[in-house]
């Protein structure tokens, strides 16, 4: 699904990613952990096509296709989804209208007609139920005045609607209390299947109690310094990141 090889990226000539290699197959969940400033969010932004960073070396392949030249929207059309740590507020555009616009933009890019209104409504209703989202929530302006939990739940709702091949969840647990965390994680688990892959980016292990990864990678100074199975996350929780930093 996703194959990253020796990826280097920088912002304003400052190197942030220093040779990342990662292989994610369909049906897998990968967790990327690391201390603050290790390059976790940069990695997710670079995969999603942010123009803020310059890829200086290496390749990113999605199902064998080099996506480096593609802009963010084209990557989204190919099935990449990024759940933001800080989702953007858009006054005057409701959750429903926003998701309609997004879905129809993708369909248009694929040469399809707009989704019929009836099908759209049904899909919205189904996915809202899945994430325990109240219908009133859907007619509010996107992210405006949302609590931390509502914002994250809305991100996962968008993921459910867009049905991506590869979903990257950037610090989805930050700002969530335990109940919100459980709802969000349950939603993600319900969306997991053998045809999609999920990359969970997190500072803490606690999210991984709910979204259980197949593989865990530890990022430090823009490199993956250790990879393992879910036990690695527990070990990190116990020993802290200093253990990795010393080893690196």
């Amino acid at each position: 699904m996703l194959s990253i090889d020796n990826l280097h990226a920088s912002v304003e000539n400052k190197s942030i990613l220093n040779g990342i290699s990662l292989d994610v197959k369909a049906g897998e969940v990968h967790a990327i952990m690391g201390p603050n400033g290790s390059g976790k969010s940069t990695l997710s932004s670079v995969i999603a096509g942010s123009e803020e960073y310059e890829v200086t070396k290496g390749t990113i392949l999605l199902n064998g296709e080099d996506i480096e030249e593609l802009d963010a929207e084209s990557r989204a059309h190919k099935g990449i989804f990024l759940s933001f740590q800080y989702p953007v507020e858009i006054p005057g555009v409701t959750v429903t209208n926003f998701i309609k616009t997004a879905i129809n933009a993708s369909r248009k890019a694929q040469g399809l007609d707009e989704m019929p209104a009836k099908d759209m409504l049904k899909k919205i209703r189904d996915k809202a139920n899945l994430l325990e989202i109240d219908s009133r929530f859907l007619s509010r302006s996107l992210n405006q005045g949302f609590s931390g939990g509502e914002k994250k739940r809305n991100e996962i709702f968008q993921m459910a609607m867009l049905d991506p091949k590869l979903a990257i969840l950037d610090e989805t647990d930050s700002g969530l209390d335990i109940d919100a965390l459980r709802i969000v994680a349950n939603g993600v688990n319900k969306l997991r299947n053998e045809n999609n892959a999920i990359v969970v980016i997190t500072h803490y292990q606690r999210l991984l109690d709910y979204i259980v990864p197949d593989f865990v990678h530890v990022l430090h100074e823009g490199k993956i310094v250790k990879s393992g199975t879910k036990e690695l996350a527990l070990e990190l929780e116990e020993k802290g990141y200093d253990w990795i930093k010393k080893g690196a």
Partner: protein
Amino acid sequence: MQLEEKLMSSFVAFESEVDTLAPVHDVREKALKSFEKLGFPTKKNEEWKYTPLNTLLKEDFHIFSKHDNTIEFKEVKQYFIHDIDTFKIVFVDGVYNSFLSETTHEGADICLLSAALTQSKYKKVIADYFNQMAAENDAFTSLNTAFAKEGAYIYIPEKKILEKPIQIIHFSTGNDAALMLQPRNLIVVGKQAEVQIIERHQSLSSQKVFTNSVTEIYADQRAQVDYYKIQNDQEEASLIDNTYIRQEKESHAKVHTFSFGGKLTRNNLNFFHNDERIESTLKGITIIENKQLVDHHTLVHHASPNCESHQDYKGIYADTSTGVFNGKVIVEKEAQKTNAFQQNNNILIDDKATINSKPQLEIFADDVKCSHGCTIGQLDEDALFYLRTRGIPKKEAKALMTYAFANNVLESVQIPSVKSRINKIIATKLGVDLGFDV
């Protein structure tokens, strides 16, 4: 010949068309003297510093139009709000067009100023209100007064709630070459009466046209005035709009100005408070491009206690367009417990676009709440990235962000047809289909 001289010498010809014995003619003559003394403002005038008039005033405008310019409704239907029932006062090249209009004298007078200025039954209203609100020391207003002859006359008597909005539309055909138009509107809204008005100036050709418009509005006690100005004219059309509103106790007046077109547009929007617990709302959306210029000069004169004013202007400027916002708020010593708020937020789409924003607060009372805020920026890159990761292409993402930016101004629009029309104009202006209606 310079336009100024041409205007002065045309006055004699103008006099042959009006009743020079009517009392209002004294007002005209006085205004002409005032204009002669003031002359057109230059860049040295602080109020016109960022809005140069020299190119406009160099044009050889015709002062009078031919009188036989007819147009078919189907040619101009798109410029009306046509999906709801409305009263209509329509002018073509400054001349009333009865075929396109729908006026009334039942329950309210919705008709022509030319009739009101000449017929005896309107004598008292004209004596009481005509030129009573307009400024005497403003060149364009004086010029308009000197040539005041035609425009909309609206009189809503006490407690009358007008059931449908009124559209005032000025078309120019371009058949006469470059033309100068000077419409004059008088609107008197009685105690507890309510009215909604939509005003539009529309050129039907690429010919140059210069409109110098004056509108006087009187809102009596507890009256409600809801006024919409749609400025989406051709690129050779220039407009100087002078609007004066006087409000009495507990009245509420709202003016929305949507500026999307034209070459040079100057809005002088003035509110005067005569008594307590008055509310004034001034909102605007400006979206312009190329070499267009839109200038909003607002004035709210708080002269009595316990009144409120809300100003919210959003501007989006592309290419080498220029915006001006000058928001003046005066709070007199007597006007204690005034709440006066002012916001002006701008987005510059291109590096060469300009906005000159100047809040001007003159506060002489000590127990007031006054605030002003001004921002100038570009679209937020992080926000654009967010939308693009959802599959929304850059252009649409920008439009959506721009739309969201302007949105809170649309929220207060009370006529759904106007709201959706403005929404559509914005979408067209931004070159995208938003994919949904508001």
